[in-house]
């Protein structure tokens, strides 16, 4: 069989090569005893065995990882968890059926929770359930995975992830999974490359023996030809050397080889991400996504709750500019009670600023919270999905009104600068016509709307290329409009972190790039090699 290329979504950056270890579900069926007492004893032994395994695992990890496992141990040690299972066993159910039913009911309760945080804990309960089931079935709880393996499967549980020593260079390639899962977060923290959403794995029976994982682009190559493997190993060696050099330069300002200072800003999805970061690694925050405030909470967040979060971010940045994007709901980011479910093509529907203007009572709350936060630092506000100047004008008028109302009430506030995201080709082509205080190019949507190709549709993913001359021309045109109007232009999409594009982006005249925290070191190192 020749080499197989699969494309998914990058979940944790980096390159890895290793033998394939396929996660298999325990399929061995245990021989259930007819005796309820024996079944109850088997269940008890499996629960206790699972707790012992987890306790052994805890000894090998620390910090957040240990806390996840301590929670699982506490749950396993609580008789309330298995109460209904023991009742079912006494009534004649087999131990595995009873345990599965009890845990599935518990898991359903978590999945139905209003708070995203509690919903996310369902994965921990699934983990507990499967570990005990594996114990009941007498199966080894976890397929033996050596630390240099490429672990493959539909999805991977946190405890399975934590059982592997990732310092030895392994990686993860999943058919399903999500870049925002608990495991993806852990993988990024451990530096284990991870690709998710590869889709059905295209072999029957015998899996491939070797895999090359590219966590930067979200691609995996199975059973590579010798030449493919040699090129990949060369890339890995270069990347390793570059990472060592880059980490050393993370705290230094970004300067091109010919001495041009480039501002490197951070993209932030939730303020928790900032806790462990030194603000000195960046020149400010180029994008705060505010959707997280609206997800999974009880209804829409109030003014005070939003203000508290915005203020926390401004406090962290210690005077560096912070750009907060107003709610960008709709498209692939539905929000219960706010976005429209029945749109045939939500990417071309009521999303971003369009939705905010259609729901002024929601938008006003956010604008008020932003005005109040603006007294605590250098705050800029940007509007997503702007297509025509009238949208910016209406938002400006609303911002003026809320600022005036707060001032009249004697509440401390300031009017932040209001800019636009350039992500609709119409806005890029006519950028000069907008009275925006700044432009921030959203390269993800700009690319998808320019190329008419979504990046999460595998069949057209090749077309979704931010490096295409058409996309680059729109970026250059926006930079030129900013230069003529004397306002700042930045770029905050994934293209900013794609170091293959850095030279081209800087050649358009861009001087400000905004990337996720993990990409900062590599971007700064790349900038240092660019001559403009």
């Amino acid at each position, binding site marked *: 069989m020749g080499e197989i290329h699969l494309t998914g979504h990058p979940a944790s950056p980096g390159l890895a090569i290793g033998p394939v270890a396929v996660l298999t579900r325990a399929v061995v069926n245990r021989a259930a005893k007819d005796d309820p007492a024996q079944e109850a004893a088997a269940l008890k032994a499996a629960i206790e065995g699972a707790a012992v395994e987890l306790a052994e695992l805890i000894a090998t990890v620390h910090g957040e990882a240990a*806390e*996840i496992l*301590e*929670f699982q141990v*506490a*749950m396993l040690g*609580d*008789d*309330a*968890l298995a109460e209904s299972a023991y009742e079912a066993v006494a009534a004649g159910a087999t131990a595995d059926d009873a345990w599965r039913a009890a845990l599935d009911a*518990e898991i359903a*309760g*978590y999945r139905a*929770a*209003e*708070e995203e*945080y*509690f919903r996310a*804990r369902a994965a*921990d309960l699934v983990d507990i359930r499967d570990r005990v089931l594996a114990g009941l079935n007498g199966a080894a709880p976890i397929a033996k995975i050596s630390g240099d393996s490429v672990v493959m499967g539909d999805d991977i549980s946190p405890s399975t992830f934590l059982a592997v020593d990732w310092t030895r260079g392994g990686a993860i390639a999943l058919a399903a999974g999500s870049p925002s899962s608990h495991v993806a977060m852990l993988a990024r923290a451990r530096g284990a490359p991870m690709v998710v959403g590869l889709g059905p794995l295209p072999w029957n029976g015998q899996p491939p023996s070797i895999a090359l994982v590219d966590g930067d682009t979200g691609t995996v190559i199975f059973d590579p030809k010798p030449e493919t493997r040699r090129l990949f190993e060369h890339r890995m060696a270069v990347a390793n050397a570059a990472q060592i050099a880059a980490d050393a330069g993370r705290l230094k300002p970004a300067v091109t080889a010919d001495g041009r200072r480039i501002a490197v800003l951070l993209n932030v999805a939730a303020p*928790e991400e900032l806790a462990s970061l030194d603000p000195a690694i960046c020149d400010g925050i180029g994008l705060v996504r505010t959707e997280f405030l609206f997800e999974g*909470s*009880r209804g829409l967040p109030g003014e005070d709750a939003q203000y508290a979060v915005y203020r926390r971010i401004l406090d962290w940045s210690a005077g560096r500019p912070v750009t907060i994007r107003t709610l960008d709901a709709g498209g692939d980011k539905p929000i219960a009670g706010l976005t429209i479910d029945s749109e045939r093509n939500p990417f071309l529907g009521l999303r971003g600023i369009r939705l905010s203007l259609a729901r002024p009572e929601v938008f006003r709350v956010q604008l008020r919270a932003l005005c109040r936060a603006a007294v605590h630092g250098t705050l800029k506000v940007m509007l997503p999905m702007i297509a025509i100047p009238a949208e910016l004008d209406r938002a400006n008028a609303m911002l003026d009104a809320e600022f005036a109302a707060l001032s009249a009430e004697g509440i401390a506030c300031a009017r932040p600068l209001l800019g636009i995201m350039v992500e609709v080709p119409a806005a890029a082509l006519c950028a000069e016509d907008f009275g925006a205080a700044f432009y921030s190019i959203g390269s993800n949507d700009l690319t998808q709307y320019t190329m008419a190709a979504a990046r999460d549709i595998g069949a057209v993913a090749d077309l979704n290329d931010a490096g295409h001359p058409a996309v680059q021309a729109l970026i250059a045109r926006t930079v030129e409009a900013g230069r003529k109007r004397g306002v700042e232009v930045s770029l905050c999409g994934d293209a900013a972190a794609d170091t293959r594009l850095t030279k081209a982006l800087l050649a358009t005249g861009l001087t400000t790039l905004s990337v996720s925290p993990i990409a900062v070191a590599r971007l700064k190192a790349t900038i240092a090699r660019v001559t403009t």
Partner: protein
Amino acid sequence: MHDANANRAAQTFALLTASAVLVNPVGLHARPSVKLTQCAKGFAAKIEIALAADGPWTDAKSPVKVMRVKAPQGATLHFRIAGPDGEAALAAMLALVHDGFGEA
């Protein structure tokens, strides 16, 4: 078994009640639940929590049951405590909540 003992204790000791607002960022989630139950287990008193002053009441020594409460940030957590070391238990519980379970 455990509940039966606590009930017996409840008959002979005054019922103590108090409430506190959850200030830590994501409410009574996994880590705080574990801390709360571990602290509660250190006392002989029967300790219960609820989201409303009139219940329903949940055994504060069971992490499974405490997690089922799904108490979000900003919620008011009510305590109902009875037992020989009830005063000390109440003080410890309130300190834990006020301190944001060490997360705030």
